[in-house]
């Protein structure tokens, strides 16, 4: 099912990009290009074939890890003569950035998930107390602020007024892990604030939903401590919705990453994506879009699978 969706999505991305008016070759060379030069580039990029052939060539390439050549980086074989073998492919451009983005998302997840679930359990435990109300207002606020607002506030307080963390994340290969972590900290914190709120509210709601059930009543009447009631009796049953919302939020990270990467000049896929959109570098836009969509679909699929696994009734169907 996930694969099928991905296939259809790839068709959409491809058609959308091919709806672009005009000719790439013409656009690259400008108005005064000779017809022969335009034709040469079109042949080079394979633009003279019909769309369906191009789609399957592209798809076959993608499946083999070949995402094509970036227009901005292309030096065309027909001009250089022989293909010197030094041209940068989209895959070369994206691969290190994917690593960076995954690192950022990973750091965020490591901070955000335990934090959010812990806070959610606490809010459910002390529901309708001052703590619950304050955290409700704060989470609503941080859900609804734009990512760049949160990011700039963090820069203001943690980087400019109190120089604790660097505000620019210039990450390069071969950096020590601790350095890398320090440089990633601020974008990760910004993403954490954006993501935590939603997860925490859902955790709280999922647990509170269960508190009216008879077995919770029973546990309470046995004289169990409230914390134990929640952790041992309510939490395992609330696990399915919680896992679902965690996976959804990790998928959301993929989107949120774009804006945050731009704010912190973090060299990830999101930054590359926005830059390529601005200069209309089609192969890169196509590839980034496909990667984001694939991660998104995979995480959604994972959410479904995990919520089935966490529920014994679904795990052992009659």
């Amino acid at each position, binding site marked *: 099912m996930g694969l099928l969706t991905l296939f*259809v999505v790839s068709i*959409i991305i491809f058609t959308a990009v091919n709806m672009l008016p005009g000719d790439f070759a013409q656009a690259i060379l400008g108005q005064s290009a000779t017809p022969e030069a335009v034709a040469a580039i079109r042949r080079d990029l394979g633009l003279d074939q019909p769309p369906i052939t191009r789609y399957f060539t592209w798809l076959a390439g993608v499946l083999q890890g070949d995402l094509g050549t970036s227009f901005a980086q292309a030096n065309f074989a027909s001009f250089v003569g022989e293909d010197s073998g030094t041209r940068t492919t989209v895959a070369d451009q994206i691969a290190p950035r994917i690593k960076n983005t995954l690192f950022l998302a990973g750091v965020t997840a490591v901070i955000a998930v335990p934090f959010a679930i812990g806070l959610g359990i606490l809010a459910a435990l002390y529901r309708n107390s001052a703590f619950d109300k304050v955290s409700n207002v704060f989470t609503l606020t941080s859900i609804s602020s734009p990512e*760049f607002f949160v990011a700039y506030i963090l820069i203001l307080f943690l980087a*400019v007024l109190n120089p604790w963390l660097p505000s620019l994340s210039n990450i390069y290969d071969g950096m020590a892990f601790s350095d890398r972590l320090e440089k990633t900290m601020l974008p990760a914190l910004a993403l954490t604030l954006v993501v935590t709120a939603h997860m925490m509210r859902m955790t709280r709601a999922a647990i509170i939903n269960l508190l009216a059930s008879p077995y919770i009543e029973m546990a309470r009447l046995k004289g169990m401590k409230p914390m134990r009631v929640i952790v041992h009796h309510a939490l395992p049953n609330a696990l399915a919705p919680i896992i679902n919302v965690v996976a959804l939020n990790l998928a959301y990270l993929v989107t949120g990453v774009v804006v945050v990467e731009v704010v912190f000049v973090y060299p990830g896929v999101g930054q590359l994506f*926005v830059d390529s959109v601005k200069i209309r570098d089609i192969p890169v836009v196509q590839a980034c879009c496909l990667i984001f969509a694939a991660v998104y679909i995979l995480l959604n699929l994972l959410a479904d699978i995990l919520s089935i696994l966490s529920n014994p009734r679904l795990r052992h169907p009659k």
Partner: protein
Amino acid sequence: MITLLWIIGGLLALLAISWVLRKLAQVVTGNKPRFRDMPLAVALGYVLGVVVLAFGVWLWFQPNAVFFRWFVQGLAISVVAAFIFRWLGRTVGTKTTKKAFRQMPLTASFGFLVILIYAICAIFAGVLAPYGQAEVFQNVNVLPGGNPATGGDPAHLLGTDQIGRDLLTRLIYGAQNTVGIAFATVCLAFLVGGSLGFLAAVFGGWLDNILSRIVDVLMAIPSLIFALLLMTIASAWAGSQQWLLTVYMVLIIALIDSTRVFRLARAVGQSIVVMDYVEAAKLRGEGLGYLIFREILPNATAPLLAELGLRFCFVFLTISALSFLGIGIQPPLADWGTMVRDLAQFINFAAFSPLAAALPLMAAGAIALLTVAVNFVVDWMLHKSSGLKE
């Protein structure tokens, strides 16, 4: 690493303090049930609250904690304003509005107040704004405050940007452009998504199947990414005509968001279609229009209205994000997302001049304030309509 150790050590110390205090309270009050049964965590919560309060008071008197003082003042002003607004609503108006205001929590009345102010700004922008939105002045980089001693200018209360445009004017016009465009987009999304959703619910069968599968696929692409992809294409189509790009943006975001509206409208519609009164109307021989507008729509108002609020927030944030990335609303129009991007570098001067850092935060704060307000109102409406108290 050392900071982490300090935090853990501090927490342990607080835990010890709260244990001692609880013990003390038990001894002093002669083992009153309130203290006897108090879990340690609750005691820790009280101690933590006191520590945070004390820290806030200490910070208030630090000379360079300007932002903290602004924050607290802003918070106090908004609480007072919300309180007065609620009191006004309770004393003035018809019976129904009075009743609504009586049940309202402070957050919701604050939300209503903010939305009202933004609406006034957006509608009367041309009258309220001191200058034109693209008017350029001689004084560039004037700081907010209007005090010449701190780098301000009484003629420009909130200062000017790098090329000398008055920021107060641009903030007010931003309300008109950003909020207006977002509102138009949401209305379009609801028109398309809502009517298709209801049609799918009423007809069912192959129409429902086809529409649902299309929506499934469209929803499989993350919305911001999809919007960026389509905007690339739109920018090629629009060519040099900037206003056309804005129109395309409205259409694109409306398309993406109408999928979410479709889902909800279909689900709500399906649960209503199976009701007896709809069946009765069908047997009476009522037409499709009657079914949708007189039977389904009135019963679907509450969830759709809440969704309208949430959707508006999402659309508003998406448009701001696109503008912030430089691909949304285009320059001659004043817009908050673009303002944040243009003014962002000033934040690095915060240590020398807090007023300079306030420039980008004002525009970003304007976005955040509106979405927070809408969320507060929607939260209250959902709470009220669900009838859930626990």
